[in-house]
């Protein structure tokens, strides 16, 4: 099963803390959505509201065209994969995965068959009779996923499920999550604070900050043309340069640049380090290389522009090498984004 989700004007406060402010978000059926943001940005609260564990102070939640705002978790077509897995320690994996079906009144043979099918999907069919404590972290993860998907939910909610895994396992689970999501077609709403994870799995990323949505879009769009300064810097390292429109282009500490802007008032020029280098369409003027370090895929270099010696621009130069430290070169950018400051 799969279904679209419509969040309309949801606001929520815990005591005096405004956790969410006027959230509007439409999620298409079968989409893999990632709610991304720093801790305390409200992403987990929004997930809890979708799951029915928190009732929003204002606004409504619609799933599959039905108002679910005040429906309890047990009656919602959603299931959750919890951060701490929350497996039932006193049950075998088979009974864990079959629990949701048992609650829906399915007979033992039916739910065992379905549970085996789900365990098989996550590669744990051989351990069906084991207890959760006999499993590794990654395996528990898979059981939690199988259990949440066994009841064929319309929407699966994932609450930072990969947070406790080491990097290698996390990458592997990201690929698996994505593959399983494609296979079952269920709408996935995944919460994380890791922008790499978000880009690895999401169809669309929802960047959140301080209870508001900052940016929504496919990973490429959010990364390359962010809608806000917060989104720009949260998605990865970025050079931020103050800019003022001057009619034909912009004035910056580096000098005037021929970048058109229709916006009024102070702007910020955003340059990704990998789009900054020794060649490109946008000339940034001469700069002195102050530091360079080898990062495997690139050299990470700091430049001090001659026009603004106090400023530090970060650029990623190719593995092949970098100019001598202290030397002056002409810097260029291949693409840039202009945002209201």
């Amino acid at each position, binding site marked *: 099963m799969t279904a679209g989700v419509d969040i309309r004007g949801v606001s929520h406060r815990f005591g005096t803390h405004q956790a969410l402010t006027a959230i509007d978000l439409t999620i298409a059926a079968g989409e893999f959505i990632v709610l991304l943001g720093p801790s305390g940005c409200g992403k987990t609260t929004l997930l809890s509201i979708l799951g029915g564990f928190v009732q929003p102070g204002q606004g409504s939640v619609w799933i599959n065209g039905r108002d679910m705002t005040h429906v309890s*978790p047990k009656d919602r077509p959603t299931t959750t994969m919890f951060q701490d897995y929350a497996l039932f320690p006193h049950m075998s994996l088979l009974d864990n995965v079959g629990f949701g079906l048992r*609650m829906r009144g399915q007979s033992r043979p039916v739910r065992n068959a379905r549970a085996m099918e789900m365990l098989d999907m996550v590669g744990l069919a051989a351990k069906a009779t084991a207890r959760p404590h006999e499993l590794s972290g990654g395996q528990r993860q898979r059981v939690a996923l199988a259990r949440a998907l066994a009841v064929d939910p319309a929407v699966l909610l994932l609450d930072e499920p990969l947070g406790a895994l080491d990097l290698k396992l996390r990458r592997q689970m990201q690929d698996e999550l994505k593959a399983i999501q494609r296979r079952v077609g269920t709408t996935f709403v995944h919460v994380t604070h890791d922008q790499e994870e978000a880009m690895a799995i999401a169809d669309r990323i929802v960047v959140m900050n301080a209870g508001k949505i900052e940016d929504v879009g496919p990973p490429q769009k959010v990364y390359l043309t962010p809608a806000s300064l917060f989104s720009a810097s949260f998605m990865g390292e970025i050079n931020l340069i103050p800019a003022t429109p001057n009619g034909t282009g912009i004035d910056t500490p580096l000098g005037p640049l021929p970048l058109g802007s229709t916006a009024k008032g102070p702007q910020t020029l955003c340059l990704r380090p990998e789009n900054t280098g020794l060649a490109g369409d946008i000339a940034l003027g001469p700069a002195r290389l102050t530091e360079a370090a080898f990062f495997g895929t690139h050299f990470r270099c700091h430049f001090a522009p001659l026009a603004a010696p106090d400023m530090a621009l970060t650029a990623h130069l190719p593995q092949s090498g970098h100019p001598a430290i202290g030397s002056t070169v002409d810097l260029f950018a291949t693409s840039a984004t202009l945002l209201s400051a």
Partner: protein
Amino acid sequence: MRALSYLYLAVLYGFIFLPVGVLVLFSFQEGRLPVPPFNGPSLKWYAQVLGDRDLMAALLNSLVLALVSSAIALVLGFLAAHALARHRLPGSVLMRGLLIAPMTVSYLIIALGLLTLFNRIGLGPSLWATGIGHVVINLPLCFAIAYAAMGDHHISAERAARDLGASEARVLWLISVPMLAPPLLAAYFLSVTFSWDEFIIAFLLTRFEVTLPVEIWSMLRSGLSPATNAIGSLVFLVSVVGVVAMELFVLRKAKA
């Protein structure tokens, strides 16, 4: 130094178990008085005790009373602990205090209070009244043990069960109770033990159907006899079986 530690151990265990050992030993006494010199062994006092219908009726009363009142105390204590651990209720600190308070009150005071109350409402002394008394003394214990055992991982498992479609009753029965089985069983066995050898409340609140401690007390009034030792040994045996059963089924499982 090592020998000294073992000596200390021997003295310690001797101090704890010597009275029980002497009691059991003289239950096998051949003569009419449970005092040295020991002559025997003989099982005649056991035969007499087991053939005594009053005594056996009292033993059965005690057993049923202990099992049933402890079960009620456990259910009530568990439900109260679950509610107070999971929900933010107005005055929950006060409620918790009130639930545990009876633990600090002496059994005599509780018994006197219940006696007065039961007389006032027309419920005379009976096994039922004693049962209520035992629920009163064991409820705080069951509550305290269950409350202390409820941790955060129980909360998330309960939340997951709700998320998968379980009603509150099924969350309690299928998730909370099994996850808390070791502490709940420990609370139950402790309650059974306390109820089993409780005397003051049973003495004041029973009349015709008495419990075993009350019956033993009335036996003692007619003087010492190896028969009291024999029944005492049987009581001890039941307690030992209870403790061993708890060790085998509860504590061992908890480790796994």
